[in-house]
């Protein structure tokens, strides 16, 4: 049976499989591509150091998310200032791209909204809605009580909605 967590899975395959989710998670946590790149690098170097153990875990992604979360929390608090650098003006943001105005405006609104949420709310929202972790997995990743996690996710959703609506009206 071919499963992702087979002991023989080598690190390249492990990296290839998990990296997009971890980098994407760190991007949504920090809204800073350089920082997301740095932290993703650090997460996978640590994974390499502990690879013999991690690859035996039934859900190695949970370990990666936990390490990535701790690195992001530590780094953002260390900087003690809001992160969020200018976005690269690449193909995805290219004005020549389809419907560029709307696409870029939405991207900027989402970025501003995420930065206004607390770090914990960003983590809750992204882990649940973008990466589909169960409430139990989120609780384990963020060191929260399982019973409180669902309610915390619910509040994060509402907070995102309120902030996004407000910013959308401000930009209208």
């Amino acid at each position, binding site marked *: 049976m*071919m499963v992702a967590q087979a002991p023989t899975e080598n690190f390249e395959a492990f990296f290839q499989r998990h*990296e997009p989710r971890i980098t994407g998670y760190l991007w949504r946590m920090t809204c800073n591509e350089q920082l997301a790149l740095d932290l*993703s690098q650090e997460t996978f170097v640590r994974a390499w150091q502990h690879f013999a153990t991690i690859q035996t875990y039934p859900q190695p992604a949970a370990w990666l998310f936990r390490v990535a979360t701790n690195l992001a929390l530590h780094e953002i608090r260390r900087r003690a200032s809001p992160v969020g650098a200018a976005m690269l003006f690449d193909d995805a943001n290219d004005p020549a791209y389809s419907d560029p105005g709307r696409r870029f405006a939405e991207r900027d609104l989402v970025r501003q909204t995420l930065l206004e949420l607390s770090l914990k709310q960003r983590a809750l929202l992204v882990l649940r809605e*973008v990466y589909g972790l169960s409430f139990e997995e989120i609780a384990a990743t963020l060191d929260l009580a399982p019973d409180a996690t669902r309610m915390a996710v*619910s509040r994060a959703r*509402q907070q995102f*909605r309120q902030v996004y609506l407000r910013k959308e009206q401000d930009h209208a």
Partner: protein
Amino acid sequence: MNSTIIPGCPEDMSVDTLTRWRDGLLAASQAQSVERHISTCRACRAYLEQYQQDVQRLRRFETTVTQQDVWNRVQPRMRRTVPAQRMRAIIAGTSAFLAAAIMVALFATVLHNSGKKNVASTPPPVVTTLHLYALVQRAGSFPSGPTYSLNGYDSTNGHNAFTHPLPSATFTLVTGNHMLGVPSIQGANPFLLLFDANGHQTKQISVGTSYPDVVLSNGTAFFVGGNTDIAHMNSGAPAFAAYDATTSARIWQHNLPNARTIDNFLLVGHDLIGNVEMPDGPVLTAFDSTTGAQAWQATPGAFTDLGSGSIGASVDTVFIVQYNPSTKTTLKSGEYLSAYDAATGTMRWRKTFAPQGTTAGVQLQILAADQNAVYCTVINSTTSTNSTAQLAAFATNDGHAVWSVPETDVINAPTNGFVPIANGTLFVTSSAASKNSPSASSSLLAVNVQTGAILWQSPLTATPVTAPLFFNTGIALGMQTNSTGGGIPNQVSIMAFRTTDGSTLWKTPMTSGSFMQLVTLP
């Protein structure tokens, strides 16, 4: 407890209850109560729709950092870093003095080996090969029954890339959202298994009702099914439902307690459209895919043909095949082909196919549709043993016959989905009309969709058991040589053909079994 009320809800539904319903955390009785409320409450549906839009916004907020960017920075550090477990093993197994000496040697060895073996000197391989995927059934002994697997094949040469065992009750294989989906049942628990392009299982979505039909689109798994007809081996009230394919959360559910069955549904534009058999006759109905609200309902007023090839759609038109009620009660049955506006449910045209001959009828099956025409096979059974077949195109706008090609063989209608149209060419298979030698003269045909001209016809050496599948460089077919009896199983294989002339690209024999479906990722 979050007691915020949904704005505008006449029954003061709380946000907490609605989100618990969406996350599948309510007891069945309370969930049903919420579903009844949602079906009538515009405010709650609007809240759920906004919620889903927020989720989609977050998912679209993607980084431009590439996997290569990260790997380029991880790889040099791997060369300088000894994995912790190796280091601990070294220290634990030697004296302090020897450890120091051996560590130097092993450290160098580890670095050397890791540079050559565990760490690629080149960037990580990126999946560039397009895979073909097959749902394969293999005969099993009593009482365990047949076994199923999801197989992946390299489309360039047909090599088997992976084989993933599946649960014993597996219905079909669907694709969408860069994912593969397999609806299954284990014991009494129905669920949908989701796999990525490399055959890794990514998710299991548990659903309350057995849904034999699934569509994956726009990050959502749409389920349709459940019926009270014992003949269909299902149970539970028929329902349409949508689940988030990432979180497994239920987005909406629309129960149809009075319906007998739901059959043959499609996602057309923004709506989920299908046949619903009500006690007093069939209705063609459309549900908004975002909210689950009913968009429109049409009453075709005739017996709906529930078999394969009975519904099709182009960009803005839905086509259905129906029995002619005036002839249904006799052996001389005729059929209707009707076209409905997919946005409003208004019937655009209806075409009648009268039976010819004296004792049998006419059978119509939809093969495919595009913005210009709907492509059908029309089989006239002139007597109980003889039939004539036509491949025909009927204009989308008014139903007039654009072209018609008489065929001595029967064009095969797919049991799942439609035959492919690519680069202005329709690809179909045909089998000899004689029931005594079904594989004697099977062929793969390429037909010009504008003129009906047969561009090429390639004889097949075995019976095609899947619909033709178009992929980047060819057409793939699941083939089967039927067992000759005596316990000898069917021999199955996948064959790929060039789209330009029908010549063989490759053939991959498989261990004995039978095909259920062949798909690729869009």
